[in-house]
């Protein structure tokens, strides 16, 4: 039977799915169209450039100046209005959905989105799906306060926003639904699944019925002709894993190298934009998202092998530069482009080696595209579905599946689950062993501090200790020196054979388990394995004793956190 509370809950989450989904879909379309408009107006797109072919000087000036000035604007927006001093993206969305930490402010979020719009509009080599994910997150987080009516609503609403934004922008509702679960929520409870599906479907309706958007990347392909080609797809997957790991490592490296250049943070995007513009004078393909290049990569003979190799290298390096030096944007679109070019290169190599036994460049290009992208975003299932929904071609999806799976396996070993997860680990939110560890890794044991313990000075004698323990009915006491610094712990059994005049300083043992202010619940749980006693001392960074953390409190906190996670993951409708 449906009781009133469940009916209310189902009604509320459905409305959230519909409302957040609808608003996020409209916002996503507005964002994508604004980027296109800027690309036309600022002579970034090939389509606009061809129309100014008679003015080569104007074109060259625009090529160099537009990304550089765009970078300057981005740098100033981030410095002035984004409190975090960096672009917000999928890692922040994950954090908002996974934890109860306060999200970045709305002002930061909107400023970051504007900076992303300028980055993409002026042709910097970054992706648009990262900002779109965060745009969906802003809209979802806005209904977060309703959480007091339904548990975990904030996470669900964020997932709804993300699913709808992706569903609309890619015109891929199934991929949007799976992405929100695979990357943002990391579980598949029915309570979350239903509203997120509603949001993704709403995005689909807005994109298809209201705005009549076509499928993003239709590719004609008649099927894989030879069985042995699946082995080649797997091999391509492995190679792509290496490329993806290199790509991600380079992005992180650029991020670390940027502060060492002595260029002030607000000027860094402009510097990267200038470099990008200068390269684009020779290689216009590196500008922007590269829709034309994606298409050319699927056409036999559009590129020579050296051209492909140069473009892969250039796009990889410049994207790392743009992201590392503070342009605001994602890595998904550049990964698609790098992957498809590399896949085409591999396909051409195969064509030379086995001229009569391959199905053309198309399946290799598509496999490469997805096999590089998948480990970067850490979402194999989403990527496979994206191929299906973007190309609407079943044969290509199966081929891409093989490459994607092998790529993910290898890249996981080489680098980690995804760029987002590795970035989050840098911010001490480690999802590599699952949500349990990450959530437990955020909670500090100092929250469980208790003042209920016996502390004695190092100069006091055993007789005092015995008397105090007797009256309180305890078996251990903590020893501190005159400044309150922790010296060790004395247990009743240690003093049984000692004369009453022995100083406690001679007996205190400091080799037991201690916690400090930064010890997380996860670390505490692993240390408790070696723990004997009642409570572990909590010691400040200056060595002073702050209190104790009772074993029971640690276990209780652990149980509570795990229970919350299990309840969220198994919540019904």
């Amino acid at each position, binding site marked *: 039977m449906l009781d009133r509370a469940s009916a209310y809950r189902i009604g509320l989450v459905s409305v959230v799915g519909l409302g957040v989904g609808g608003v996020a879909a409209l916002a996503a379309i507005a964002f994508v169209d604004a980027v296109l408009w800027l690309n036309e107006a600022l002579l970034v797109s*090939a*389509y*606009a450039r*061809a*129309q100014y*072919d008679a003015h080569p000087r104007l074109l060259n000036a625009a090529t160099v100046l537009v990304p550089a000035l765009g970078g300057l604007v981005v740098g100033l927006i981030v410095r002035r209005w984004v409190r975090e001093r960096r672009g917000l993206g999928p890692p922040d969305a994950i954090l908002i959905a996974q934890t109860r930490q306060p999200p970045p402010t709305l002002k930061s979020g909107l400023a970051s989105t504007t900076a992303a719009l300028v980055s993409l509009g002026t042709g910097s080599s970054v992706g648009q799906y990262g900002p779109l994910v965060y745009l969906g997150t802003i809209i979802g987080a806005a209904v977060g306060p309703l959480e007091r009516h339904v548990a975990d609503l904030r996470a669900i609403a964020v997932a709804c926003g993300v699913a709808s934004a992706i569903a609309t922008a890619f015109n891929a509702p199934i991929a949007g639904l799976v992405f929100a679960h695979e990357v943002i929520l990391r579980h598949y409870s029915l309570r979350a699944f239903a509203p997120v599906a509603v949001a993704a479907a709403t995005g689909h309706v807005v994109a298809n019925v209201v705005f009549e958007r*076509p499928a993003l990347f239709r590719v004609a392909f008649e099927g894989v002709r030879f069985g042995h080609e699946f082995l080649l797809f797997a091999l391509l997957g492995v190679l792509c894993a290496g490329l993806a790991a290199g790509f991600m490592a380079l992005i992180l490296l650029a991020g670390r190298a940027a502060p060492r250049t002595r260029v002030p943070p607000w000027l860094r995007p402009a510097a990267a934009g200038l470099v990008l513009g200068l390269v684009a004078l020779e290689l216009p393909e590196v500008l922007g998202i590269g829709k*034309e290049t994606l298409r*050319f990569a699927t056409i036999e003979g559009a*590129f020579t092998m050296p051209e492909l190799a140069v473009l892969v290298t250039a796009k990889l390096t410049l994207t790392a530069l743009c992201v590392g030096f503070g342009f605001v944007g994602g890595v998904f679109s550049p990964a698609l482009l790098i992957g498809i070019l590399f896949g085409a290169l591999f396909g051409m190599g195969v064509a030379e080696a086995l001229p009569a036994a391959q199905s053309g460049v198309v399946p290799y290009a598509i496999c490469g595209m997805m096999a590089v992208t998948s480990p970067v975003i850490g979402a194999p299932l989403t990527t496979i579905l994206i191929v299906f929904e973007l190309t609407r071609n079943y044969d290509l999806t199966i081929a891409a599946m093989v490459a994607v799976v092998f790529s993910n396996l290898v890249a996981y070993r080489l680098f980690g689950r995804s760029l987002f997860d590795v970035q989050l680990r840098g911010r001490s939110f480690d999802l590599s062993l699952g949500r349990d560890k990450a959530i437990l890794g955020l909670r500090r044991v100092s929250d469980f501090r208790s003042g209920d313990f016996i502390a004695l000075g190092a100069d006091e004698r055993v007789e005092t200790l015995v008397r105090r323990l007797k009256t309180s009915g305890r078996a251990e006491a903590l020893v501190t020196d005159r400044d309150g610094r922790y010296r060790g712990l004395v247990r009743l059994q240690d003093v049984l054979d000692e004369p009453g005049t022995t100083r406690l300083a001679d007996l205190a043992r400091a080799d037991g388990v201690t916690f400090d202010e930064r010890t997380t619940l996860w670390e505490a749980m692993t240390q408790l394995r070696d723990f004997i006693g009642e409570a572990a001392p909590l010691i400040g960074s200056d060595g002073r004793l702050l209190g104790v953390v009772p074993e029971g409190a640690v276990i209780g906190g652990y149980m509570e956190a795990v229970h919350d996670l299990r309840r969220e993951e198994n919540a019904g409708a």
Partner: protein
Amino acid sequence: MRGLEALVVALCLLAGAAAADERATLTVVTWGGAYEAAQRAAIFAPFEAKTGVELEIVRWDGGVAPLRAHLAAEDPPRWDVVDMLRSDARAACREGLLAPFDAAILAPAPDGTPARDDFHDGAIADCFVSQLVFATVIAYDDRAFPGDKPQTVADFFDLERFPGKRALREAPVGLFDWALRAYGVPRSQIYELLSTERGFRLAFRRLDQIRDDLVWWRDGATPARLLAEGRVAMASGYNGRFFHARIARGAPISVIWDSALLAENVWAMPAGVEDRDLAERFIRFATAAEQLGAVANRISYGPTRASAMRRVGLHVEAGIPMRPHLPTAPRHLERALRKDYGWYAATEDLRRRRFEAWRSNGVAGR
């Protein structure tokens, strides 16, 4: 019907007035051939009969350059009204070669619907009004391919399966679009790719495959004749001309509707037109539902206003239904390639330069 009656009365009065002084004349520039014949029967003759104005018909092959040259000439012959391609008209309008167009002169539909609501969206522009939709299509001589018939634009470039001469218009229009379509590029992305160096290179590579078998045509009547005489196996051309050749002369010509390039013809007036009132009166008459419908019942071009479309029925001589032969028939629209006027207008130089470089040295050129 009141609108139409009023129009007739007005035109009769005007005719009387015109007849009073010496016989007024108006020069109309248009394309010749079966198209002009249809216009003569549906528009020119009735106009002369109703107004008494003598129409002088000048033939041309379209383009912006001839109009530019005409306006720059010392003592040009008179041009009052010009039938031109929409893409050319757009470029000419930007250059200031056309007189501004006042939409208020257009006749409402016979049922009183204002012209603005009756015409297709975007048909009325600053310097012109769009009057019909035509398609540039590929047609083949049925006798040349007794077995498999060509079906797609890719077959046009496939000399192995479909050998024989090819005829293309000697202008940088349409051939690049088709060459890229032959690679399987989706319709929506053709002009994005043609905006790049690489896109042109690919297009010319495809054109190189048929280079030695190419015959160039200029005049719109030529391709149907080349096919009918068996001098080429496939040719590009205007769908109405091919239709006419088959219906009126029984030529064995079949049309491939795949990637048909849709475009529009417009009526416009050159800048500084001599007798603006009379020119506007002609355009009002020529774009009325009755006249546009009458043109479509003679040659298979789709009218741009709904009230005219409702008047399309059987061909006046052959008696076959005209609707399935219009480029705007739903099953043709599905496979059609919508020409991007904005892109065409802005890339005239670019296209011409590359086209000429390719023709003279066989390189994609810059």
